[in-house]
């Protein structure tokens, strides 16, 4: 119903606009009437065909009604740039005096001393603001930054003027929100890079082999914990983070096995490990938290003392792992946890730490 009333108003005003122009022939009126009927029937290509055949839409002498109908039709066809050009023309040429006063007053003192604005001009302000907003959102990648800012600024200026006026069609209200939302999404999708340092408490269970003097081979588990210091480089937007990071861990291990053939125990064994690898993290609900995988490549050494006559193997190994990783971020600071398996380690690896970005 609202749409019908809006359409009726447009067509009525288009007729008025056309008749208000000079040098309008009977044939002009007939073609214009045909075009209006085609517009009412949703045959937008035909509208433009008819108007282009009869009128030169680039000619300043073309009646306003024809230009406005063409602009509305371009809107329907999502050709917002063409629509915007026509609205700009209608505003700056056909309402040259009124528009100059309005814009002059706006630039001089904002919304405080705006003159009376013709209803038709207000309608063109609305339509042009809508067209500029559509171009801003849809053609964002093609627009030069300065032009993009100008489009947004102009659209918001028209919205501000419309808010101050008694213009009744309040659909312009949504334009600022749509622009802000688009800017927000754009910002969220933009990837940024940063370096960071990190420090973590880490615990893992390792495994070494012992070959006894009688040739018997046995696996011995170790338990350790330590601190890992390092850093990384991240590439992220508000939805994803990819990073490569590494750290150097210094840990104290306890190693031991006691059975009928082995009695070996050592406490406080120094173990050093280098972890380096990529992470891929998903930020499901907000940029404040992320969850994903880390694939570390690991070089680990241990200063285990060989029992007399026995040989220890795998005191230094190179391996890799797969860890679940979660992180929480607040501005430059963050906390993270890692939990998973390193190949050739006897059980899980845990890490909990903090990082700071630069």
């Amino acid at each position, binding site marked *: 119903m609202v749409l019908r009333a809006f359409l009726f108003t447009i067509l009525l005003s288009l007729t008025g606009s056309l008749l208000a122009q000079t040098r309008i022939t009977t044939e002009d009126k007939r073609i214009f009437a045909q075009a209006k009927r085609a517009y009412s029937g949703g045959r937008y290509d035909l509208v433009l065909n008819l108007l282009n055949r009869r009128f030169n839409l680039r000619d300043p002498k073309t009646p306003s009604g024809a230009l406005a109908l063409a602009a509305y039709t371009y809107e329907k066809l999502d050709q917002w740039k063409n629509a915007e050009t026509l609205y700009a023309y209608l505003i700056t040429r056909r309402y040259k005096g009124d528009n100059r006063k309005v814009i002059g007053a706006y630039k001089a003192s904002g919304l405080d001393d705006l003159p009376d604005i013709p209803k038709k001009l207000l309608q063109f302000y609305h339509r042009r603001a809508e067209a500029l907003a559509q171009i801003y959102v849809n053609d964002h990648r093609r627009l030069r930054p300065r032009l993009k800012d100008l489009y947004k600024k102009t659209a918001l200026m028209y919205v501000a003027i419309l808010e101050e006026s008694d213009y009744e069609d309040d659909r312009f209200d949504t334009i600022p929100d749509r622009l802000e939302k688009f800017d927000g999404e754009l910002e969220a999708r933009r990837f940024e890079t940063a370096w960071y340092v990190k420090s973590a408490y880490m*615990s893992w269970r390792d495994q070494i082999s012992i070959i006894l003097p009688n040739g018997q081979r046995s696996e011995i588990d170790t338990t350790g914990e330590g601190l890992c210091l390092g850093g990384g480089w991240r590439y992220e937007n508000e939805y994803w983070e990819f990073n490569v990071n590494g750290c150097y861990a210094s840990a104290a291990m306890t*190693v031991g096995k006691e059975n009928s053939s082995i009695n070996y*125990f050592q406490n406080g064994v120094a173990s050093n490990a280098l972890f380096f690898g990529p992470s891929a993290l998903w930020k*499901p609900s*907000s940029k404040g*938290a*992320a969850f994903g995988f880390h694939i570390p490549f690991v070089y680990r050494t241990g200063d285990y003392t060989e029992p007399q006559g026995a040989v220890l193997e795998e005191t230094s190994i190179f391996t890799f792992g797969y860890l679940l990783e979660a992180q*929480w971020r607040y501005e430059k600071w963050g906390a993270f946890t890692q*939990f998973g398996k390193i190949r050739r380690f006897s059980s*899980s690896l845990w890490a909990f730490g903090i990082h700071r970005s630069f």
Partner: protein
Amino acid sequence: MFLIFLCAWLTEDAKAYPNFIGYGYTSCLTCHYNPFGNGPLTDYGRALGATSIADDILYSKSTTPDDLTNRSGFMFSKPSNDWLRPSMDYRGLFLRRDLANDLAESELIHMDANVNITLRLGPKENKDKFIISATMGYAPKPRSNSANQDVDQYRSREHYLGYRINQNWGVYAGLMDKVYGIRIPDHNSFARILTANTMNDQSHGLLIHYTSPKLDIGIQPFIGNLAEEANVRQQGGAATFEYTVNNKTRPGMSIQYGSSEFLKTYAAALHTRLGFGKGNSIMGEIGQVKSEQIKRATETTSRYWMIQTHLLARKGLFILNTIEYLKSNVDAEGKTLRWGPGIQYFIAQGLELRADIYNTRVFSDVSVSDDVWDLTGQVHLWF
């Protein structure tokens, strides 16, 4: 130590969710009749759970938040009066201990089944100004006492009167949880076991509560649970304090003292709750407990810390991790760490599923032992 682990699984409950600081909710009183959480939810708490916390995957697209609010009352209905608020909840646990042990058996345990009635007797404009709340529940026999036929499996979980003097002050009297630390729903947590704040550790007492946008303070003298034998009742006091730095940062501290004929305990803790973005949080508590066995004239000081993280993967679905440290005796070597990643899913109002893996590692200077892996699954229903 083994006994502690064993008993712990039987004392798991969850009603209060302090991690909702991730949504900007700093104070428990917003959603619970009890100002420090746990126990029945207020109308607002139920509506909040239905609309903002639980997933809406089971509802049709035409269901509006108003519809969910209207279904958030007792038995999914809209309350027919403003003075009576009944509720029920059930929690069942699937437990498989020591996954590496082929001989270990899986168990299904009905951890609790509670019926609550809350009377809202305040004036019409503020019905919660004066409340009476009582919860009766089923509790399985502790494993350590499973052969004892005299163990009562039905007990009052809480019963108390509450009066809000004004917007800031409230007084509560009756059987309640003690105010100490962060009331995480994991009663198997070292932080809850060591400080005697698990599912069946409520105490009769008086709770004085002060709240303001910046502060929550609770002071609670208690006389033990009167249903217990007089000589084992822990009498003493607890106090907790939380300060709102902003709506996502809430540090605090707690102290607790209890004494019976056999045991004296002193506990103190610092804690913090931090929110990140929407729904994500990190909570941490570090504390120390001194226990004096009076008859044996022995004294033990234990230390613990706990970090629990929540990451909101989608509406209602959390990836969580509980990291815990326990040093049973600060004067002895050895400590235990436990890493517990899990998933918690509020599928709809009244239905929560949770699964956790617990990887326990013992650090000792005299031996090397294998890690222990336990698996738990929980279903929590509330009406």
